[in-house]
């Protein structure tokens, strides 16, 4: 525990003691260490996972209340169990390759890159043309054309595939370039680690000397202020030194919640390429390529059936192919439409469920604002509950075909006037306040995904 944490912990314990019994405090909290504190989150180290389970299940309310008393505002609480090993796999890979020789395959996997994710195995269609072309251009001439390259798109559409392809291309073709590929979460973890062990210099050196820095799932930087600052400087150093930066995200940069503006504007500086769900032809091509790669033979009808029925996500498409192929080889049965339909029942159902229900909206909104689902329908109306409820009503109005009356009923039997008022209020506030608009558009897009 460093000085700051020690002080914070003392303050927090003082606030916590009256909240719980003496025995509880001694038994559960005396062994807890505060190891990381930001304006948003507090990380506690616990001796083993029973502490986490028991505190989470029983003493969260007391802890939250104590945090509120001690610091004046709520924080997110994280537990780190000393028993569970810290994930260091990929980082070891990164640092290792800087001092050891480069072997083609094993080294690329040591980089944290999947050798299967290359440009050759990427199927191009109208949905991902631009992203692919831009990635290839970047790989062939890093830092010359598009810098930074920002790839975004939904789940399972190939963001990671493209980034890793760039990494491997550069790694294989340009032997003297230092490639670093990692997820933003890993970046944050390493940063925290560096602060903790006081070796920020080493941390900075590692990232600021890269020739190609690929960071996956950058949206996780949202809300991590110190990490953002650190990344901002890393970004500037690399950019000014004409080094290539590639980022991927599940949404456009401007929609990442709690991301500083200077970062947003920098992300939009270079080229932004979107990945969209593939069209039927592309899906067919993906299936055939994948089948070829796995050396499985299936009738054309089967490919068409799969391509037709699974639209949203390439990963799911491949999973379905895998399942059908393994069924065919295991049972040796004829693959009729019926058999496949039965085999993929769960996937197809999931695909069919594109329409959004009021209940999903309530659940998502409740989760986002951290209120209970029951509050969506309850009679209570303090502002902290009433506003999320209004947001949910507004979204229900926008995203479902339900009538005002139906929406009112779904929210604990309110009448249509209440719903109408809610929609008006939310619209008005969205116009007036940027952060509310962003929040709502974020919930909206996460629901539609």
């Amino acid at each position, binding site marked *: 525990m460093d000085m700051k944490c020690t002080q914070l912990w003392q303050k927090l314990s003082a606030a916590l003691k009256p909240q719980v019994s003496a*025995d509880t405090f001694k038994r559960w909290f005396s062994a807890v260490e505060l190891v990381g504190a930001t304006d948003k989150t507090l990380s506690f180290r616990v001796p083993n996972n029973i502490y986490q389970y028991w505190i989470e299940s029983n003493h969260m309310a007391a802890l939250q209340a104590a945090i509120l008393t001690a610091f004046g505002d709520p924080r997110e609480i994280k537990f780190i169990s000393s028993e569970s090993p810290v994930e260091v796999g990929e980082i070891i890979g990164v640092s290792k390759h800087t001092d050891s020789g480069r072997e083609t395959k094993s080294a690329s996997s040591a980089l944290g890159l999947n050798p299967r994710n290359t440009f050759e195995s990427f199927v191009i269609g109208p949905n991902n043309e631009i992203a692919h072309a831009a990635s290839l251009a970047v790989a062939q001439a890093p830092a010359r054309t598009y810098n930074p390259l920002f790839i975004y798109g939904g789940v399972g559409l190939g963001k990671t595939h493209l980034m890793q392809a760039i990494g491997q291309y550069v790694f294989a073709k340009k032997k003297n370039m230092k490639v670093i590929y990692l997820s933003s979460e890993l970046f944050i973890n390493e940063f925290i680690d560096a602060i903790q062990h006081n070796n920020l210099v080493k941390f900075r050196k590692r990232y600021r000397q890269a020739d190609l820095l690929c960071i996956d799932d950058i949206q996780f930087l949202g809300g991590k202020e110190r990490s953002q600052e650190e990344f901002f400087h890393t970004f500037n150093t690399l950019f000014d030194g004409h080094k290539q930066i590639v980022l991927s995200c599940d949404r456009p940069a401007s929609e990442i919640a709690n991301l500083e503006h200077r970062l947003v504007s920098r992300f939009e500086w270079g080229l932004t390429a979107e990945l969209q769900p593939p069209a039927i032809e592309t899906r067919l091509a993906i299936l055939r390529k994948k089948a070829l790669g796995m050396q499985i033979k299936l009738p054309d009808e089967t490919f068409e059936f799969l391509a037709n029925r699974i639209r949203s996500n390439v990963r799911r498409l491949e999973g379905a192919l895998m399942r059908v192929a393994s069924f065919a080889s295991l049972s040796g049965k004829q693959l009729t439409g019926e058999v496949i339909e039965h085999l993929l029942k769960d996937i197809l159902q999931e695909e069919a469920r594109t329409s959004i229900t009021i209940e999903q909206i309530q659940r998502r909104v409740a989760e986002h604002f951290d209120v209970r689902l029951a509050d969506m329908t309850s009679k209570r109306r303090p502002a902290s509950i009433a506003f999320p409820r209004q947001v949910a009503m507004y979204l229900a109005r926008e995203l479902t075909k339900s009538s005002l009356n139906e929406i009112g009923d779904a929210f604990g039997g309110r009448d249509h006037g209440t719903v109408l008022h809610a929609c008006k209020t939310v619209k008005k506030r969205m116009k007036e306040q940027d952060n509310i608009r962003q929040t709502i558009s974020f919930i909206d897009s996460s629901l539609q995904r």
Partner: protein
Amino acid sequence: MKFSVTKEKLLEGLQQVQNVVSTRTTLPILSNVLLQATDGEVHLTTTDLDVGVRGSFEAEVEKEGATTLPARRLFNIVRELPSSEIQIDVDGKNAASIRSGQSFFKILGLPEEEFPPLPKFEDAKVVTIRQKDLRDGLRKTSYAISTDETRYVLNGLLFSLKENKLTLVATDGRRLAMVDIELEIPRSQEADIIVPTKAVTELQRLLTDDGDVKVSISSGQIAFDLNKTLLVSKLIEGNYPNYKQVIPGEAKERVTLERETLLNSLRRVSLLASEKSNSIKLSFAKNNIDITANTPEVGEAKESLPVQYKGRDFSIAFNPEFLMAPLRNLTEDEVFLDLIDEMSPGVLKIQTPFLYVLMPMRISS
């Protein structure tokens, strides 16, 4: 393969194994039951690759052999058959003809070779337990197993074989149930393992009041041999949390309660515990406990329970479901409730080594 058997024997045999068969599966063979007819006996096996059960029934075997048939369908047919004598004849293509009285059925199966074999147990640690003891222990603990899949190590029952006793532990983070069973365990056979919920449930169905069960533990697998039936299961990998940390220190107050009286009172009062807060309050006063529940805008309930109590007056609130669960599963007439104060966990005990720790809920005044 050809054999005749009485309806009762076949039904009993199928009942033992059919629960394991998974309803949703990508491998069709897993919804089948493996039948192996040998000298005067037919063995039945089912598995979902995590848990497998093997049982048998006596039959007049005319022709030995083996096949697999859809388990659920076979069970449904046998249950509805009108006559008690059943004859099953399977041809070379795994089609089974079932004859009974005036009825005739033909169902199609899959070849025996496709059925995944149950794992072998070599170099296993072996202990023998009385079936009655194990069944009793499982009953007293298994209801507290967590169903929260994010804490997967808690989705099973801890079997701790140490210091000449078998300790069974289940917890979901809000309560913890623990039983000790005296057992001779050589040092070399000591182990700490987590048995998944499904295996525990099945095992409870198979255990009887007589005889022993031989438990074999090898890496990642466990087998329960109940003489006529065998249950094997994968174990949950990982370390069970240090549950001893949860057990509170010395109690300040102890009350002795009649289990059934308490259970009935709780059941009645809990009818008016609100779904949201879901708590009932126990208020202790001299020789009396008031059990109360109230839900704003709905109503309230109160019941008085005369007891021997001489301690200080205080109130403590519990989740009624969590307090009733052990009471339902115990068989003893008397239970002891140990308490420290309104914010510390309560402990339910009986005469034999059993412990149930339950976290109180906050009393909103």
